[in-house]
């Protein structure tokens, strides 16, 4: 078994309205950042886990994402093993 650090990024699907991202965008524009095309807010999870291999860790993280970390109705996720 090895200790693996994984990173899961959860994003809203394309086309799903993101009021939080829009509000952040407006604030940034008020601060003077005028070149912003779009802000989408998401979530990142850093998960340290014991796994047989980096492949095994990745498949566990994928399962966790499908079951809990992301809501498939409106969100997508990306899994990577960082170390």
């Amino acid at each position, binding site marked *: 078994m090895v200790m693996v650090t994984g990173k899961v990024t959860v994003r809203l699907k394309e086309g*799903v*309205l993101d*009021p*939080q991202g*829009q509000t952040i965008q407006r604030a940034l524009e008020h601060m003077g950042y005028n070149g912003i095309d779009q802000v989408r807010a998401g979530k990142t999870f850093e998960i340290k886990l014991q796994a047989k291999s980096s492949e095994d860790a990745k498949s566990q993280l994928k399962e966790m994402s499908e079951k*809990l*970390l992301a*809501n498939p*109705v*409106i969100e997508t996720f990306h899994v990577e093993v960082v170390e």
Partner: protein
Amino acid sequence: MRIGVVTFPGSNCDYDAYAAFRHVVGCPVDFLWHADPDLKDVDCVILPGGFSFGDYLRAGAIARFSPVMQSVIKFAGDGGLVWGICNGFQVLTEAGLLPGTLRRNAQMRFACQQVRIRVENNKTPFTRGCRPGQVLRMPIAHGEGNYYADPDVIAKLEANNQIVFRYVNSDGEPDLRSNPNGSRHNIAGIVNAQGNVLGMMPHPERAVESILGSADGLALFQSLIGVGVQAVGSETTSASPLIEKRRARV
């Protein structure tokens, strides 16, 4: 009929629901505990409002995996009655017992106000005492009540008459201004295809006595426990035992 009200860490409308059943409509009711899978042989499970598990991750996402919910999912699958209010609705969508999801309000604020909802389907166990098209006044209090589902899912809900409540204006018509959270098709509540699981964002348990500003929510409690319901419109407030008691004291 016996009712079970689930308490999760962070539930804050469990006692309101309990009081509505026990003290207002006079129906036996028990609390159920999130960590205990025992449903105590109740006939209907209430998933109350609040912020279960602090709304961490997503509203309802953590509650959905609690021991009691494994029993509730099985109970609902066997045809048992399940009624999710506010956070309870969010738990039901996370658990897959109802389609779609509740997104952040489109208006970027927590919505805490009195709304009007129209009964679109009075063939459910929760609305059978209502007239079709009856408008009920009750409060909402949520930050994530913006019902969303893919267009084909919404179309199916419409076609199957699964949309039970819609936000409407004072003329009883759904429009943009009467929609407090941006929900698709002004949806305020839906049932599953079998009709035994209801989820709704408004709080009928906070509208069971005129002293609360409206007693329109009573119609749903009375429907559920099978008490003959007369027309409970905004203008008529049916006297509850609790009100009678208070009146007697005065």
